[in-house]
Each structure stands twice: as C-alpha cells, then as structure tokens.
C-alpha cells in the first residue's frame, strides 16, 4: 500500500532548476486531512498552532532546520531527525504529503495579511526615522538590532506592527538588556548571548564579545526589554502602515 502511493509522486518533478519532488497532494481536502494528522501526530511537540514548544521548533516560519524543499519535509517526517527527539512517522506516503502541505500552509496563512500603506512613503520614513542607526540593511547601518535583510519574509504584517508599537512585547531573548558589575568596579552593559552556571557570554555596548566568569561579578541583572523605541504616538497610524508596507517589500 505504502509502496504504491510512493510511486505516484516519484514521477512528479518541480519545473525549476532543482529536481526535488514537489508535493502532489495539495488540494483543499488534502490540506484538511493534513490538519487532522498534524493535530494528532505533530502538535504534542510542535504546538496546536505549530509555533513550537519546549519540545519541538516553530514550524510557521517558512524555513525549517532540517529541510528546505517539499521532498526534504517528506523525508524528515518519514525518517525523523537523528540526534533529536523527532521520530520517523509510520504513515503512508499520501498522509505524509498531506501533513507536509499543511505545515507549508502554516507559514502562508501567517504571512497572508497584505500591507495596505504606501511603500515609497514608508521608505522615506525609514530614512527619516534613522532606523539604520541600529539595524543593518543592504550593506549599511549598525548591528545593535535585528538585521532587516529579508525581514519581509520573516515577520508578518501583524508582527511588524507589534514590533514598531510595542517593541518589548515579543522581544527575542538575545536582545534583552543585560547589565553586570564586576568586582573590580567596572560596569558592563549589553546583550546576553549565552549563559551557564559558571559563565555568561555577552555582546557589550562597545561591540565587544566578552566571556565573563560569574565569580568575577559583584551583581548582574537581566531585563526583558527591547532597546527599540516605540513609535506609538511618534508616527501616525497611516505612517505606521506605510513603514510596514515598505518592510514587507524586503524579501
């Protein structure tokens, strides 16, 4: 049974330069079946919304750690990922394609909302608001904040609005404020990049990577707060829309 179903997609190759298989089961019915299988087989670890948990990674980003193509997704689901807790799943080929199609759709639905502003006006705002003082884009800017290269593929319209209006609402942990005072009296501010029981690894505000032995610290603090200023009240609703429109063009 499995073998027969496997044979169907083997003949179907993508019409672009690579020769990897494309998902042959992408009808709305297949998507609906995929949703059912996702709930029973995948959601325990990846979350009912696919956004991940302490057990499995976020599957809504459109990119995957262990697969780039439909065929790669198919292989990951059937074989699992050795060295992780991701097992191989014993479903037939069609069922696996249905799950893979549903997982692809998680990103598409997340990114479905279209920006409604004026992108050209948004680009002008991007310059006038001096975003490159902290962010990096197209060979210019700074590295204090998130790189904006391909930000239009990574954040949805809603997520961009949140980042502009309430930057601390969903700030990634590597951008949290860290501050430490050494026993020598020196104060260090920066971003916490990694931490264990005995040491902490930071990017300090002067742009230096530093490994610090915790026994050398007199005190330290970590604040779940972004350095990004809120544009709430600084820009009008229409201007926020324009800026978001511009950012969505950065693919």
């Amino acid at each position: 049974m499995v073998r027969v179903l496997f044979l169907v997609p083997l003949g179907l190759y993508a019409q672009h330069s690579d020769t990897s298989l494309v998902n042959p089961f992408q009808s709305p019915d297949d998507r609906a079946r995929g949703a059912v299988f996702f709930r029973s087989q995948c959601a325990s670890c990846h979350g009912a919304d696919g956004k991940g948990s302490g057990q499995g990674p976020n599957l809504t980003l459109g990119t995957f750690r262990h697969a780039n193509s439909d065929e790669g997704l198919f292989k990951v689901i059937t074989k699992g990922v050795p060295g992780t807790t991701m097992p191989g799943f014993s479903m037939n080929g069609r069922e696996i394609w249905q799950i893979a199609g549903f997982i692809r759709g998680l990103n598409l639905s997340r990114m479905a909302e279209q920006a409604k502003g004026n992108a050209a006006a948004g680009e002008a705002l991007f310059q006038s608001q001096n975003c490159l003082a902290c962010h990096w884009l197209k060979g210019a800017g700074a590295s204090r904040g998130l790189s904006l290269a391909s930000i239009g593929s990574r954040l949805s319209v809603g997520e961009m609005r949140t980042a502009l209006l309430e930057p601390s609402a969903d700030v990634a942990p590597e951008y949290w404020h860290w501050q430490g005072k050494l026993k020598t009296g020196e104060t260090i501010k920066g971003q916490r990049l990694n931490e264990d029981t005995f040491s902490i690894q930071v990017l300090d505000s002067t742009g230096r990577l530093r490994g610090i032995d915790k026994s050398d610290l007199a005190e330290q603090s970590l604040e779940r707060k972004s350095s990004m200023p809120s544009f709430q009240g600084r820009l009008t609703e229409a201007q926020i829309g324009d800026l978001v429109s511009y950012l969505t063009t950065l693919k």
Partner: protein
Amino acid sequence: MKLLLLFSIPLMAQVTPERLLKATAEPHNWLTYHGSYSSTHHSTLSQITRENIGNLELKWVAQMNSLEKFETTPIVVDGVMYLTEAPNNVIALDAATGREFWVYEHKLPDVTYPCCGRVNRGVAIHGDTLYLGTHDAKLIAIDTKTGQKRWEATVADYKKGYALAHAPLVIQDKVIAGTAGGELGIRGVLAAYDAKTGKEIWRFKTIPEPGEKGNETWGGDSWKYGGASIWLTGSYDPETNLTYWGTGNPGPDWNPAKRPGDNLYSDCVIALDASTGQLKWYFQFTPHDEWDWDAVQTPVLVDHEVNGRMRKLLLWANRNGFYYVFDRVTGEFLKGTPFVKQNWAIGLDERGRPIKAQGRGPSATGTVTYPGVQGGTNWFAPSYSPVTKLFYVNTWDDYSSTFFAWDQEYEQGKWYAAGGVKAEVQSASRDRLNRRNPKAGYGATRALNPVTGEKVWEFRTAEVSEAGILTTAANVLFTANREGYMIALDAANGKLLWKKYLGGMAASSPVTWEANGKQHVSIAIGHAMFAFALRD
C-alpha cells in the same frame, strides 16, 4: 583491594550470578547498569578525594560515530568497558586506554517507533554474555569476547509501537527487560528470559486483562492501549527475591477522559517475585495521571533507621514532584513530601495517595501546572551514600508546563498522546545557546534526608540536568548537566570541588572503576565517553 584483585583473576571473563550479588565487593568494576542491585550509585573507591581532586586529569576520550542522543551508562568488567551507541551498537573497549576491541552493530528496520530519539541506555552481563535491548523490540545476547550474536528473542511487535531502550537486568540465570512505547498505545511488558538460551520464563503485563485484578481501573477498551511502559532498569533485593521496577505513564498522555479510572499499573513501582514474575505489591504514585509523569525512576534500596528501628527501605524521588519512602518488603507507605514546587496536589493522604487540586489537568486552552512535563526529576539516577547517609537527586525546580488536551482515536503505530505541552524549559535536548529566562526555572543537585525528605543542601545550576549522580566513600559526588560540565561536589555540604567543561549535554550517569590500580571516573557527554583519573 590488592587481595580482591588477585582473588578475581581465575573468575575473569565469567561474571557469575554470585559476583553480581556481591558487585559492591568489586569496586574496581561496575558490573551492572546501576552499579549494584540496590542501585545506590555509590562506590567504596576512595583514591580520588576532596583534597586531591584538583589533580584529576583527562585520560582518554572515546568518540562515537553516532550523533544521536548518547544515553549510555557503561559497565566495566575486569579492564573492559562495554557501552552502547545509538541506535543499537555495542562497543567493547580497553578501560585503560579507550581503544576499541570490537563493535557489534544491530541492523534495525528502516522505521522503528521510538517516542523520543533512538536512545539506548546500556547492557547487562551474565557469564561471558552481554544483553542488549533494541528498537525493534528484541533482546540480543552477545559474546563478550568477540561481539558476535549468540541468540535473539522477540519481546514484542515493534510495528505496534514497542521498543527496548533500557539496559536489561540479570538476576540469577535470567535476563529481565521491558518495553517502551507509552506514547504509541502499547500495553507494557516486563519479561524474563533464560540467560543461556533466550527462552522466555515469565512475562508480566503492566496492564491487567479483563478478569484480572486491576482491569476495572480502565474504562471501556482503554486498557488495550494504556501504555504503562518500562524504560529504565529496575533493582533487586536478594533477601526477599523481589525485583522493583517503575512503570510509565498511562496513554493517551494528556486526555485522561479517554481512560476513566486509576489506570493500574501505570505510574507505579511494582515489586515482582524474580523467579515467577508474580506481583507481590505495588504503589501508584499518580493515579489517573494527567501530565505524563512516568514513575520511571531508579528504585533505590537502602537499610536505614526509622524511628529507632532499622528498616529495609525503598527511596523514590518521583517525577510528580513528591519524594517517597516505603518499606520495600511489604510496600507500606512511610513518608511522602514535595521536593520541588508543585501545584497539582493539595497533599498525600495517610496511604500516600495524592489529593488532587481542582483544575490542574490539561485543557483545550492550556493549563499551567507545576512541576512541568519532565517533572521534579526523571529517569536519571539518584544516589545514596552510606557514609553521609544522605539521598542525592538532580531536580528541576520552579518550572511549569502548559498542558493541552484534545480528542484522538488510537491507530496502530501512530502517536497517541491526545494533547500537547508547552514549556520554556527544553524537555529533552540542549540549547546550544542558553538564552532562557532564568525566572522560568532552574536545576539543582540536592541532598535530602532519606527518611524525612527534607533538603540538607543544594547546588543550583542555571540549566536543568539529565545526568545521574555518583557518590564515593571519599565523600566526592560526581554529576553533570546539560550545559556541558562535569562537576564534583562535596557530598557532605554541596560545595563545588571541581568542574570541567566537556561541551555537550550529559544524559547518563557517571561511573567509577579502576584500571591499572587507578581510580577512574567516566561519563558520556555529547557524543563521546570521557575518562578521568588522578595525574600520574
């Protein structure tokens, strides 16, 4: 020590049942997964002390070929270390140098059904034969000298979700092993085989059939897919001939409405007659479990004074966040107390049964419950030291998970959990970059009063640990953590004595043994086995 070594020479290569009974009298070896039948993870070796531990140096590293999770705890027999590598390889190496003698490679079907990685935790030995459980649910006997297979027995049908992950336990002339698969709708099995021939001698099903006592604790047909797996090696008391094993969660994990009742014998310690497999007593830690809190912990057997009287005790720090003390002969519950933050139970009644708090079970919108899904502790080994008379356990404290439930029907070979979990603390792997909110919980190596469960000291760590604990007669405690450190603490007060960054997560127990008269300590970290001894 010298005398013992001389005495053991004629017996070399033959690990008789008598030697296993007196494993602690051969501290230069580590003869079983837990080091001895009482599973105290304690050694009388004392060359490495609190004073000289600064001279500990790396003697060898054995790199594995497999990059899958490395959960092996080795055995060491007369200068040879036997360990397993994922998924199902066995390696014999020279304990003095780390050089390999042979590798046994078990060929698995393309698809097997591990819940959480194709892990294997180790082997057992009887005579000159090793025993390995596999992911296609087989028990394999292997020649210690050549690595060649002698026989294999099929414990269960792997296509139905069964697998073997733990090191078998040899008792007299029997090899005992059980089946994992609690997330795949299996019905747990623990079975004993003739060590020479592989013939099955007895079989205990962890979920009773209709007509058997306990089946009434499962509503409808739920007993057929109820889990109660076995995935960690048990203990044995030769005086009573009882063998103790912990059983896994009932399935489906997070939708308890699918299985009305207490769900015996899930989340239990079962005490079986080692000769017949008959159940002598049981205790269920988490009746009608709603959180996936397998009672898959090491049964620690200790003789200790309670209220002025020596008692034969069973000590158990359970995944559900409570620490328990039992009379291991009768199963009498003596004490139970939380050892980490928990909010699912108001307390335990006089017989040890939890009085559940309202509304802490999984829900459609998610319920935040302490401890989180991996519990207050889990399968990694605790230790008991007869020198300090303390119980040591690696704990995960002050952390929660959000538990979700949904509906799902059983289908053979498919994941059957009927719910999910979210948690800020990673459940079973190491984040290379630890950027977790420190407020989301922490790990701690704790020393508990074995009778009262009260905390005597703790050593806190930023991340949680999946490593076991080893204590020695010199009051040195070895353990490790997910961050990549192997550490040594003073067993008396928890003070840090020594640390070494080895750069990968530990998910097994440190063990100690001798090679060329020198005490070694070894641990599996990342994808390699590391061995340390004092500088020459």
